[in-house]
């Protein structure tokens, strides 16, 4: 059976979610593996959400918002993401999650093609890394 990675994307309402919406409206080709959770701002994204997504069985996670500086609808929410995500990356590597499974970055509302491109390349990247199986591993440890 072919491995189809499950990818959760946390996108901010004003930039990357708008881009993803526009990419869909423009019928740009993108894989169905990426599921989007909308938040008002990337500043809302607690590192716990990313860990939770991996723990629930996600093979890859994307966090994307507005370009710093200045693009953020909430003035500087993306700055907080900018500070939090590098720390989270270190935590993820300590948990043994490969770098290629977590992507954080910036895509503005006007960059729909960039979103479609990211969805395609990230899905292929995670597909190349194979299943994470974190959920099963955690379950076996609990037993």
């Amino acid at each position, binding site marked *: 059976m072919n491995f189809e990675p499950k990818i959760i994307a946390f996108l901010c309402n004003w930039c990357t979610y708008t881009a993803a919406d526009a990419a869909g409206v423009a019928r740009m080709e993108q894989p169905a593996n990426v599921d989007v959770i909308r*938040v008002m701002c990337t*500043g809302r994204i607690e590192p716990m959400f990313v860990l939770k997504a991996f723990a629930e069985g996600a093979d890859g996670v994307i966090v994307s918002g507005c370009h710093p500086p200045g693009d953020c609808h*909430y003035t500087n*929410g993306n700055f907080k993401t900018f500070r939090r995500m590098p720390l989270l990356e270190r935590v993820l590597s300590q948990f043994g999650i490969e770098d290629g499974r977590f992507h954080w970055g910036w895509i503005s*509302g006007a960059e729909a093609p960039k979103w479609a491109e990211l969805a395609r390349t990230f899905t292929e990247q995670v597909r190349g890394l194979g299943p994470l199986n974190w959920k099963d591993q955690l379950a076996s440890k609990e037993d």
Partner: protein
Amino acid sequence: MMDAGRHPNITLLTNSEVASVSGYVGNYKVTVRKKPRYIKEELCVGCLQCVDGCTYKEAKFADEFQMGLGKRKPIYLPFPQATPQVVLIDPERCIQMKTGKCKKTCAAACDRNAIDFEQKEETVEVDVGAIIIATGFKPFDASRLPYYGYGKYPNVYTGLEVERLTSASGPTAGEVILRDGTRPKSVAIIHCVGSRDEKTNRYCSRVCCMYSLKLAHMVKDHTGAQVYNFYIDMRTPGKSYEEFYDKLLSEGVRFIRGRVAEVTDWAIRPEEEGKLVIRAEDTLIGVVRRIPVDMVILSTGLEPQADAASVASMFGISRSADGFFAEAHPKLRPVETNTDGVYLAGCAQGPRDVPDTVAHAGAAASMTIALLNRGQVTISPTVAAVDEKLCSACKTCLSICPYQAIVFNADKNIAVVNDALCKGCGTCAAACPAAAITARHFSDEQIVAQIEGLLREPKTAEGARP
């Protein structure tokens, strides 16, 4: 413009710049830097005796309003219909401002003692309920396209420069003449300079086709010259616009479909000597043509203002891919921005012509009045809330809120969110160490439920992903 200047309910702050904006819909506080014009505005009546009295007997500085084609003095009225009708002094040019050693004949000529060389910049603070941004556009700089020769060949003009030449109040009093004073016998108008071009701006600037047609008509009418239009597509939507195009076709104005490759003075045929040669493909007959002309007019497009990025961040609004300010919805909310109480009017939002700008501005004014007359606003329920029992009074959220929407209640020893100021970004909810803050509609429970729902295994063996 004069009507706005005279209206009792309108205060005009000209020659001024917004320094900062704070507050929220209904309660904006705007700090404006009022630059000195070195004239007491309330005393000046615009009689222009000071301009006649200036130590410089001849005007010798490039006049910005005449696109540098005319001259002005260091003390001048920016343009004939300027509102308010008040002169100003250019501190970079005025001898008194630069050296302090002028005979100050302008001040002697003014019988109302309106000239004040000591005037300083003032800071004005205004409380407003709503803001309309109508900062307009910047004309495309034609020298960015060297193959059209603007700045290299003196008789290559931009549309705006020729507009001044055709104007009765322009530097030549309405005479369309070349730099050497002669009338052009043949004129080429190049469309889409800085528009519909992968190298510069991809968008159509919308007004250039019509102003090119107007200039073609005016130049032909004023000089009797042969006029050639080089266009990609003629875009003449709008009431009576197509009819105007038809009229020009019948007037004998030539239209050649093709983007111009180059404007050059390199003559290879005797009739091209001393002329500017247009090299372009005529795509309708499929040949490359060389057309010698005396004057070239570049129909330059419209661009966002150079400081659009800083204005956008100051007012908390966003910009679309082309750099113009973004409306809340391209079809249904073309006047509002995503920030409550901030509206857009005119070319600040995107290129548009005069009738559309008047309509857009009228809509912005109406929306503002409707907002202010209602006296109350509907706010989004997507705001943060503090659970009093969980708040540990660490004050982390206070510094993290971009809107200063969270204040600390010392009596109850808890943080409190101001619903009117909170925009619902949820940054505080993510940062709260005690998990006491809930971002309503984006609570931890709701987002975790979404994660779990998306990753739930399908019940059926060969079922699709949920």
